């Protein structure tokens, strides 16, 4: 990249772990606090967009290549469908939650059946969608 701003790149280097951590917090605490797969995935994706804005898409594709993002993109939807199909093995309708998955104690982190797992799938999918979208609109060669 021809032009790189010192302040922006250094602040990005400091902030990127915290942005990603906040996004993962939004995704994982979906059953306890406001948030969820869509909003948390957007935060994670926006962190990587910030990285590619300040360091160039070539730097960003070293961390999170185009091929990885497309694989995660398809894998998120596939994981969602597999979590729904699991209930067929127990003779329940598609996407059954508490009859199969352990309920846990409401209010704890490990509770609420498959809600957290589904939101993890959605979150990874949305994050990789944002990253792949920005990469393909960025105008650089990606292969």
């Amino acid at each position, binding site marked *: 990249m021809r032009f790189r701003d010192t302040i922006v790149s250094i602040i990005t280097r400091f902030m990127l772990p915290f942005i990603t951590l906040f996004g993962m917090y939004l995704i994982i605490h*979906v059953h306890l606090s406001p948030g969820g797969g869509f909003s948390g995935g957007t935060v994670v994706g926006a962190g990587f967009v910030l990285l590619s804005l300040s360091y160039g898409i070539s730097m960003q594709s070293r961390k999170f290549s185009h091929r990885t993002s497309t694989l995660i993109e398809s894998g998120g939807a596939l994981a969602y469908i597999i979590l729904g199909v699991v209930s067929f093995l127990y003779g329940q309708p598609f996407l059954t939650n508490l009859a199969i998955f352990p309920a846990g104690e409401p209010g704890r982190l490990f509770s609420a059946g498959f809600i957290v797992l589904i939101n993890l799938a*959605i979150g990874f999918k*949305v994050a990789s969608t944002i990253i792949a979208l920005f990469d393909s*609109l960025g105008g650089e060669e990606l292969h």
Partner: protein
Amino acid sequence: MKHLIAITLLVILGLGIYSVIIDMPTFGDPENPGNKISQQKIVNKAVEETGSQNVVSSIITDYRAFDTLLETTVLFAAIAGIFATLLNNNRDSGDVNNEI
């Protein structure tokens, strides 16, 4: 021949969809699940039925999980369209008339 196979497949798919549609409850029937289940009942029972304290996420990813699945499919379709139009697909020639 290709068209014949395509039309046959579409007719079989359409018959499948039709057989599902005639089993659906009549529109506007007060006995429909959408009309019988009140929002108050969902709000009161969400914690014990889904184990999630956040009622919004329990509605989105438990009661209406199938809707959310297709929501993520919309994202997939959008990104597939973007890739198809914007990325260079390594075609030897720019002439696409022969492929249609």
